[in-house]
């Protein structure tokens, strides 16, 4: 494996591989075991076949007739759940560097890609900063190392880019991983997404920095994207005002997502030490809110 071991340590790679194996091994059974946390799967599209029941599957999808014939609990699968494209938009702007947000984003992108590809989906990863757009398609059959290498090679730079590729289909499914720092520009981008009726999920990996906890004193405040800076004398009054402004910005962000029908997920990613200490299984990861939501989003029509 040539991927950065710092970005994708063994513990994470181990989780990733287990998730991939579970998603691919045993066909539907394995996948179902991973998706036990999925509370609802949309039954839309043509019948594709059966897979073994796993705890957590919706009882309404159990094919009781097949159970009567074979005596084994199986659930129905539909065409829409497999072989569909899903686009992951990864914000690569400089602001993503703060608080290792970009690392968390890339790990999330790797996990999502592995799970969905293992399930049979084709994941199109798009990373863009400024005019530099990089794209990688990951699907079942490709080595996961290629995915990790591609993610490791990404670097943050520049400002937020227009992350809406022009070749997206009108009904494309999107997962948009970003810090959504520029709320003022958010509405314009959401308007463009909404205009093509795409279903989108916005994921904000939350880091400690979002709370902007500061000490009193003088420091240089620098805009990480533009490099401009100013001298700031921080005091209690400024910190309180800053919290108010941050809350106000978060409210505006949620309001914007809600107004444009985009589901917004603020995700608290586990740290690597935490992952290693718990020796978590893929289910621990996948049982997290992120994967749950992603799988639900990915399965939704």
């Amino acid at each position: 494996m040539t991927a950065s071991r710092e970005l994708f340590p063994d513990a994470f790679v181990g989780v990733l591989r287990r998730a991939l194996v579970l998603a691919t091994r045993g066909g539907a059974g394995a996948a179902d075991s991973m998706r036990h946390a999925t509370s609802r799967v949309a039954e839309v599209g043509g019948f594709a076949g059966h897979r073994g029941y796993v705890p957590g599957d919706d009882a309404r999808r159990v094919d009781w007739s097949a159970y009567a014939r074979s005596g084994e609990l199986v659930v129905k699968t539909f065409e829409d759940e497999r072989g569909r494209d899903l686009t992951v938009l990864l914000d690569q702007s400089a602001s993503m560097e703060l608080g290792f947000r970009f690392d968390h984003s890339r790990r999330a992108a790797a996990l999502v890609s592995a799970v969905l590809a293992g399930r049979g989906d084709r994941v199109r990863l798009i990373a863009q900063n400024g005019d530099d757009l990089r794209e990688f398609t990951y699907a079942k059959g490709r080595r996961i190392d290629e995915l990790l290498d591609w993610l490791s090679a990404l670097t943050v730079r520049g400002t937020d880019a227009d992350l809406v590729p022009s070749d997206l289909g009108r009904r494309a499914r999107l997962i948009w991983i970003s810090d959504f720092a520029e709320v003022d520009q958010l509405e314009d981008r959401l308007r463009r997404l909404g205009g093509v009726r795409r279903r989108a999920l916005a994921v904000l990996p939350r880091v400690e920095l979002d709370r902007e906890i500061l000490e009193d004193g003088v420091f240089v405040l620098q805009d990480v994207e533009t490099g401009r800076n100013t001298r700031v004398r921080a005091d209690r009054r400024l910190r309180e005002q800053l919290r108010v402004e941050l809350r106000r910005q978060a409210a505006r962000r949620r309001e914007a997502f809600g107004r444009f029908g985009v589901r917004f997920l603020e995700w608290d990613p586990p740290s690597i030490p935490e992952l290693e200490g718990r020796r978590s299984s893929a289910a621990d990861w996948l049982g997290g809110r992120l994967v749950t939501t992603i799988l639900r989003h990915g399965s939704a029509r």
Partner: protein
Amino acid sequence: MDFEAPQRLLALLVLPLLWLLSLRPKPRRSFQTAHWNVWQRALRVQTRPPRPRLRFLLLALAFLAVSLASAGTTIGRREGPSRLIVLVDRSASTGRVASPGNDAMQVLRNRLRDELRDWSGETNLRLVLCGEGVEVEETKLDLAFEQPAFTTLLQGCEVDLEALAKAGSADSSAAIVVVGDEQTSVPPSAASLRFRSSQTIRRGILSARCEDDWPLSTIRVRLDLFDERIGTNAEEPLTLAVQGAPRQIGVEAFPIEGDLERGVELTFERGSGGRLRLTLNGEDGFEADDWVEFVVPAPPRRRVVALGDSEAIEDAAGFVRDLFGLEASEGSVAASGAAVVLADGGRFDSWTPGMLSFGVHTAADTRSVEDGEAFLVDWDREHPLLQGLDLSEMRVRRRLPRDFAPDGAQVLLRGRDGPLLVSWEDDGGRSLHAAFRLEDSNLWRLPAFPRLLRRAVRWLILGQAAPLEPSATGLLNRSESLGFPERRISPVSQEDPTELLAAGFPLLPADPGRSLAAPLVVLAILLLGLRSLWP
């Protein structure tokens, strides 16, 4: 703005250091944010941070004020002299009339008083009055103008005022003022008040000489005059007014030098003599050189005594009588009152003024004449009596001893064995003495003898009269009269007043000025107070 200790302004070099020290330390911490706009909105509620430049400006101004106060800043300070030296040219040329009814020195004094109005009346003033000598008065400015000597004019100024002014200029604490006329040279370092006129007539008697025409009854007066017009074409003929007993009988004018100077010779019938005053017409404001006066003596006595029995002396006496119209006199020499005594041989008690003697012994000399030819070696060809005479053929058969003449006599004819003819002259008169009798020589037969005799008698008679020199004069000083072209300051008319040249004025005294130390310190305190109140 002046500084008593400008070197203390070097403290201002500390300002850059103050600027560095006033800069806020650069924050060691930095914080990167993705929410720049959020921060900007949050920072709006914060009070605007203090402006270091304004705070430094207040500090720098306060420091500047303290530095200026330390350097002894003053305003209105003026470098200059603290006392006065006034050099007054009291020569006659300064005393002319400045304008009708105004005395020049009075005008100068009033103008000087006006020019020095900025000076305190208590200013020490050294009044240097220059005439034939120098008078120095140490006084106060207020009292200086009341000095009577200030306006007392003298005959001339023999003091080099320029040198005096230059010497005074060495004292930087004193201001030099020269008061005079354009004749007075003034160094550039001194202020001056001098008269000048653009239109003037300059006239004066530069020299005067009088000649006695005896035996004629006339005298001749020769004057060198100066007559110049400057800036005017006014026609005013040059005339001479004559006052006195002698009667003018003729006048002759002739040019001397250029167009400005001319000579005038006037002839007078002396009569019985008396005072003669000649005055140049046309007041030019400098009266001193406009007149000259002579005392013409009475005519000499007109008798001649011949002592001797030789044919030669009788012929000589007859010639003299005929030539000069003299009368023969009889009796002793003392009682005769003769103007000329012709003596040939014999013995006298002493030499008598007016005597022309030939081979005459004095009473103390008992020696006899010496036989043997006395050769004439030479004669004084430059002497007025002998000029142009040829005496080379003169022979003397016998003569007196070589030391017959008194000590101090001037030798006119020199023989091989001593003087043959001497002249004697003292305050009492003149006399001529020959070492030989006329009959012992061939002198009286020479062609030159009548001319010699005529000259000798005239010389003897004129030697008895007082010299005809000016007895009184306003000024007979050529350099003083001519001076510089503008020196004669005389207005031609009331419409052309004299111009008074003032150079080097205003002459301001030293002023210590007003110190700004206290106001600057107060200003510095106020600035520092304002800075401390500044957020």
